[in-house]
């Protein structure tokens, strides 16, 4: 891994998104939301900021946790976006409190996707349980990857749900490498991989060298084509976290993050970029 660039200005810029109550919106001018707040909290942690700097964000996010350990989108929609609970477990693991982390993990372990009969037109096993975006719906790659990552990071990678989650991710892998939102192909035709989802799934499959190789190869081969801050962030985190070089991607990510205008800047993606640039493996056990 190459040396981390000086991200002081980027951290300062990200901090400017924080609202007085401690929450962070996806975009400037909007209301605070859980996902950007969680990722900004992790980015500040990864960038070496002090607990005092992180305190308002931690207080905001802690107050959002429901009694059952789940975490919703924002104070007005506490029952929506429960897929965010996995990310909250990772954040509480690094930034405390641990009892909040354990409650979150308890919810993650109980949150299940529904299954259905297999379809000959879609080459995937619909009977494997993963994690859904929305309660009582089907499982998809991103919420499943987040949940497996949470269990891995918190030392519960051997939990049967994590084991089945990894099986789910391997089943949804596109044959030539990578992942999209959830189907490897339809009617014998492969779907296109997404860089962000591929990075997340690879991180979730940490420790399975053979399983991650095609996805890592795919990201390496397509380095020139990856140009979004979000795609770059997750590509850098997965490649470097799993032992590959990603210097050109890291350099491009740094350049793009320094050139993005505030208009249209997604704080969650910017925070993911900072985590990647920090080199801290916050999503790995």
């Amino acid at each position, binding site marked *: 891994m190459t040396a981390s660039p000086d991200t002081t200005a980027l951290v300062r810029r990200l901090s400017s998104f924080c609202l007085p109550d401690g929450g962070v*919106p*996806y*975009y400037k001018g*909007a*209301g605070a*939301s859980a*996902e950007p707040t969680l990722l900004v909290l992790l980015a500040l942690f990864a960038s070496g900021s002090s607990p005092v700097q992180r305190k308002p964000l931690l207080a905001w996010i802690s107050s959002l946790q429901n009694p059952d350990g789940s975490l919703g*989108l924002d104070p007005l*929609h506490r029952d*929506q*976006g429960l*897929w965010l609970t996995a990310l909250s477990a990772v954040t509480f693991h690094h930034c405390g409190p641990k009892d909040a982390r354990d409650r979150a993990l308890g919810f993650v372990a109980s949150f299940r996707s529904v299954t*259905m*009969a297999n*379809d*000959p*037109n879609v080459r995937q096993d619909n009977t494997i349980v993963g994690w*859904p*975006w*929305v309660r*009582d*719906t*089907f499982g*998809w790659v*991103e*919420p499943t990857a987040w949940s497996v990552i949470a269990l891995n990071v918190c030392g519960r990678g051997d939990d049967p749900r994590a084991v089945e989650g990894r099986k789910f991710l391997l089943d949804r892998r596109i044959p030539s490498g990578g992942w*999209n*939102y*959830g189907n490897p192909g*339809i*009617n014998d*035709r492969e*779907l*296109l991989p*997404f*860089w*962000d*989802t591929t990075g997340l799934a690879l991180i979730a499959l940490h420790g399975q060298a053979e399983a991650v190789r095609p996805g890592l190869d795919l990201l390496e081969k397509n380095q020139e084509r990856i*140009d*979004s*801050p*979000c*795609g770059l962030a997750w590509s850098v985190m997965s490649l470097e976290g799993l032992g590959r070089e990603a210097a050109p991607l890291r350099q491009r990510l740094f350049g793009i993050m320094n050139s993005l205008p505030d*208009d*249209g800047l*997604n704080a*969650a*993606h910017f925070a993911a970029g900072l985590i990647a640039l920090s080199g801290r493996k916050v999503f790995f056990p």
Partner: protein
Amino acid sequence: MRRRDFLKGTAVLANAAVFGDFRESGSQLSPAPCPVTLLGMPDYGRDLEKDIAAVMTRDGLALKGKKILLKPNFVETHPERPINTNPAVIAQVAHACLRLGAAEVMVGEASGHRRDPWFSVLNPKLRTILDKRVKCLDLNHGDAAMVPNKGGLTRLPAFYLARPVAEADVLISMPKMKTHHWTGVTLSLKNLFGTLPGIYYGWPKNLLHFRGIERSILDLARTVKVHYNIIDGVVGMEGDGPIMGKARPVGVLVLSPFSLAADATAARLMGFNPRKVLYLVQAGRFLPGLRPEDVALRGEDPKRFATQFDCLDDFKRMRGGPFF
């Protein structure tokens, strides 16, 4: 779920009794024919901004001083497939709105498959061709307004609408002319899925699939007020749409204040009989414009554009024509 099972399920939609009588409340049916204008656009290099503005004006769309939201379709991105509303069309419509005195013009989308808005309305390539006054909004990540579900077919009590959609004075639905592997065709009405933020509904919006795609389309058609529709049929998608199909050049923009009239006309241009597309039939119980006699066709001769889109075998029964 298998497509055949899904289609068997949707056959129930043909049974009006299942859904009660839509016309009893909130019906938007009108005795006057719905204007639908066809503008020839052989390729995306043509500049139709003035023509689009003229048609919108003739259709009575008042934009002066209003906050306008353009809702294109950016469900997924593939370098070789015409999946999305073309940026050139988006730009021309946005600039036509500014020309007509709109106070604010926004382009917003809650992409159905792609979380990363770089592949949708926040792509720098779109930004660079838009006037600086036009804002691009990622509707997947942001505030939402809970609005009661006026349809009730999905049994969802309410929808979380992206706040810019709820707060716009004028909403313009701008879909791509495509086949759809679950519903036959996807046009202005189906495009409303992209008004619902992914942080509430996921990627894809699986909750709507679970509640029934066609029921969801119909509920959204009842709940979301659309003021105008512009269908990008310059290059459509045939075959295994809306993602895996092939390009089908048609060379037309379809414009109308009436969503169903726009969709039914576009379906006819594609060689589908809208009276065999079940969600369009059901929408015809509360929206005007399903039948040819409900439509006042304007602009260019539809025979110039009428064609036969290839489609999956399951949907060949929805074909019909010639209609023009």
